[in-house]
């Protein structure tokens, strides 16, 4: 009897061990569990690969969506678009997938694609998120040189508390505070350094004015004193500074314009990032 009891005790212990130790790592259930863990650990590439190991029969709507989302998070937009567009209408995540597609178009700077997608598919196929889609659609105009819609039309999808900020973006885009390169060049040709001051480089403008004037004066003084050779050397130096200043003013205007365009686009991206591209946060890992 003692032996039988001992045997059973040993077997129970062993079986318990076997249950914790003998894991089928590649069973569909375990692959899914592991993929979920990787997804929440933000190891998205591995998560996508693990989810994709699951046979079609084991894949739910949420898995298909998370595969696409994983590719999107690692900036593999090509794969992400393919996966999102493969999500069928009956899926629980169909609407979210369509909005994500718009976001990817945005991140890819494919604004023309985004607009045609919105007009031809999003409006007709998607039940939810029409306002969010319209917001992204309107935002796309701020990144391109295409003609802007009217201000009222542009602002219409945005909430009241957003309107002020969006309105300032719109105004900036409509009338960007660019400096005219030609005008800067002409101004510096008339009064050395004035073009630079016009562009906002006041210190550079004053230095350019003083330098050119001083060299011109020395050249004039040498001509007056009869030192012709020396006078021509100083004339060349003055001419060099003068030409450099005119060219520098045009270049400064171009640099200024490029800088403010960059800052504007950065501002837009920061704003959109903060708003998460008008996509509500998913609660897959809570």
């Amino acid at each position, binding site marked *: 009897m003692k*032996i039988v009891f*001992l*045997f059973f005790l*040993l*077997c129970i*212990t*062993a*079986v318990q*061990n*076997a249950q*914790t*130790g*003998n*894991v*089928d*790592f590649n069973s569909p259930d*375990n692959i899914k*569990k*592991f993929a979920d*863990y*990787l997804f929440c650990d933000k*190891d998205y590439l*591995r998560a996508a*690969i*693990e989810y994709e190991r699951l046979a079609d029969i084991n894949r739910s709507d949420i898995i298909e969506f998370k595969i696409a989302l994983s590719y999107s998070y690692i900036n593999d937009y090509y794969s992400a678009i393919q996966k999102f567009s493969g999500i069928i209408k009956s899926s629980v995540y169909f609407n979210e997938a369509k909005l994500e597609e718009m976001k990817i178009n945005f991140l890819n700077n494919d604004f023309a694609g985004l607009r045609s997608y919105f007009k031809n598919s999003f409006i007709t196929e998607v039940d939810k998120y029409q306002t969010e889609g319209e917001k992204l659609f309107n935002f796309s105009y701020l990144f391109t040189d295409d003609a802007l819609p009217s201000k009222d039309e542009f602002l219409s999808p945005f909430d009241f508390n957003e309107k002020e900020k969006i309105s300032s973006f719109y105004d900036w885009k409509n009338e960007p505070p660019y400096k005219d390169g030609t005008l800067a060049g002409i101004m510096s040709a008339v009064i050395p350094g004035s073009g630079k001051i016009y562009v906002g480089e006041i210190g550079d403008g004053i230095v350019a004015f003083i*330098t050119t004037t*001083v*060299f011109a004066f*020395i050249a004039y*003084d040498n001509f007056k004193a009869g030192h012709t050779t020396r006078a021509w050397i100083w004339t060349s130096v003055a001419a060099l500074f003068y030409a450099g200043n005119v060219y520098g003013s045009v270049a400064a205007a171009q640099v200024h314009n490029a800088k403010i365009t960059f800052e504007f686009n950065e501002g837009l991206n920061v704003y959109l990032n903060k708003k998460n591209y008008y996509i509500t946060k998913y609660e897959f890992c809570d």
Partner: protein
Amino acid sequence: MSILIKKITTLRNMNFVINRKYFTATLLFISCSSFAQNSFDTQFNFANTLYSDENYFDTVTELKRLLFFDDNSEYNYEANLLIGKSYKQGAKFSDAIRYLTLAEINAENIDELYETRIEIIRINILRRTTRRAFKLLDSLEADERFTDWSDKIKYWRGWAYMFADDWVQAAQTFAEIDTNHVLKRLAEEVDDDLYSVSFAKTISYIIPGAGQIYTGEYISGLLSLGWNVLWGYLTIKAFIAERIFDGIVIANFLWLRFYRGNLQNAENFAKEKNMVISNKALNYLQFGYDGLKP
């Protein structure tokens, strides 16, 4: 008497039966237990094979899988260590340090602790965060538990100095291990080849262009000398002729500009040449040196 013999025989037979039962039970238990171990061992061995095949991405995946299902935390040290090493091979240094730190936390003895810490130091050397490497080396050296490894710690300190571009200290550190250490000789050779940036600048202060000539940039040095002589001559000539305004303007806008340019040039050339020399030495260490590398 015959009854007694019978009883003894029965008892012997019972003993045999009991022993057989014990044996069977133990056998069953061992087979169950070893089967239980096998599933995780197999997974770990599989990951090891992937690592040996230089398939580092899959190594990380399989080890993460092992850790995820390893409820008993039996592989916390080995798996995290190998994940860290795999990430290192893929140049994902931050991830590597993260997992090596996890391995360090799970180290069960002094050898394991030493291995993880040195791995972290090697990664810091490799990614040139040498200040962090020095800090970790200092803590290892100050810890009495690691006195047996003092030569090895010095070895990695020498490497850290080489990556920090301090070849003099590197040579000294390797000399503490062995006065004829191959890396000591290399560090000394590199140090001999390096140009002194301050010397290049100083001689350029005295004779414009001399710093460039010292670094082997003869044309640049001669041009610099020529410009400085020309503008210096014109400045002095203007002052002698009492054309004070001309003198000030030439000195300020031309001579001083070329003189300052000459100093900057001398400094830049010395730094650039030193970088080439250092990189050449590091290139040799990467491809030509057979010893342990970060």
